[in-house]
């Protein structure tokens, strides 16, 4: 069974959720290969992945810049007005002595989305070459790590709740950044959905030198690097 697997066969997969060893079938663009036992998605074959991701990541970068520079929310009470950006929220937490929480909000609402966009943008641009250098793999890994901590959609819901809490006390003025952030949520989701991780790894140079053709025919499955 293993013998049928050629050396460094990137179609051989161990399911990340149940470790079932299987071979990826040819998947048409837009299709999904699922684990035969636990239905975990093993490969989502995205059509036209690089170009779509590039377009969405560029748009995301522009919206991120706008969202973090213009006011997000304003408050008007008794003739006084106060505006805040996302960063303003972080500063308020910092000043009031909750530095840990301020850093967490800064990371999840500002830095992680930026890293998410920048990493993927660099990966997609580098992958336009047929064989991308190994550091692209590091960026791709960084992108996967940071995705879970990029929480713009949750922050936006939080802003909505805060807005309703405040609405009884004062008049709330929604700022431009609020709408831009709303658009950014959908752009980031579309960007992640357009990107094909499996195809990306196939175009990145290996950390180790590829084995000689002779070695390739003798070894059934790659020997791991020490």
């Amino acid at each position, binding site marked *: 069974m*293993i013998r049928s*697997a050629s050396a*460094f066969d*990137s179609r*051989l*997969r*161990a*399911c*990340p*959720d*149940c*470790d*079932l*060893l299987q*071979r990826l079938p040819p998947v048409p663009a837009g299709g999904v290969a699922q684990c035969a036992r*636990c239905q*975990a998605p093993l490969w989502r074959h995205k059509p036209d992945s690089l170009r779509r991701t590039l377009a969405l990541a560029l748009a995301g970068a522009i919206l991120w810049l706008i969202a973090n520079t213009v006011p997000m*929310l304003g*408050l008007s009470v008794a003739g*006084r007005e*106060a505006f*805040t950006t996302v960063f*303003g*929220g972080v500063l*308020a*937490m910092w000043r*009031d002595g*909750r530095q*840990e*929480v301020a850093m*967490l*909000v800064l990371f999840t*609402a500002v830095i992680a989305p930026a890293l998410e966009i920048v990493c993927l943008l660099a990966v997609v641009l580098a992958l336009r070459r047929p064989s991308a250098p190994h550091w692209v*793999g590091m960026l791709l*890994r960084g992108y*996967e790590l940071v995705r*879970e901590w990029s*929480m713009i959609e*949750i*922050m936006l*819901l*939080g*802003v909505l*709740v*805060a807005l*309703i*809490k405040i609405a009884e*006390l*004062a008049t*709330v003025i929604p700022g431009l950044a609020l709408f831009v952030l709303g658009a950014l949520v959908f752009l980031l989701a579309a960007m992640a959905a357009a990107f094909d*991780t499996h195809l990306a*790894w196939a175009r990145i140079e290996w*950390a180790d030198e590829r084995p000689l053709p002779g070695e390739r025919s003798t*070894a059934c*499955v*790659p*020997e*791991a*690097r*020490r």
Partner: protein
Amino acid sequence: MSATPVSAMSLGLAGCEVCGLVSRLPVGGVVTHCPRCGERLHLRRPASIERTWALVIAALILYVPANLLPVLSTYTPLGSDTATIMEGVVELWSPSSWPLAIIVFVASITIPLGKLIALAYLLISVQRGSVKSTEQRVRLYRMVKFIGRWSMLDVFVDTFVVALIQLRPLMWVEPGAGVIFFAGVVVLTMVAVNCFDPRLIWDLPQQEKQGNA
């Protein structure tokens, strides 16, 4: 493929957790790295059960002050008022905004507690070597991983209430100590989910099947 499911581990193979490439691990347990992406290879995440338990217990301890201490303190010339997470939910409950109150309640109270219970159940069932409902358990794991981030909601709510209501000396809001503990619960449970290795759920039934065959 043969009809009986075979795990990569039973053949001495490891799927890379970063790039997915399957490699053969040398015998003797030396430190090995994925030849494609350079990530360290493991058959299973190291000390998965112990680390996940440690994080679950730490999160459970923080869960108590997170819910008992105030997350927001409101100051006016007439005096001050504090609110815990639950009091915030009750405050939000009105004929027009009750759906949001439910969302905050689910995100701040139900999800963190449900996550801790779900992780404890997964850990105990793996430690007992349970062979039952493997598919349901892996689905539970995926749900916990997917939903868990949403408990950050209350941290964001508090941040922006504090940022906006800064109209000294008329009225201003400061964050309470509860926010730190609550943020701690969210981060610890997210890390705990990542420490847990779902492949452990399947390990024993497979060995038994092979033993019977």
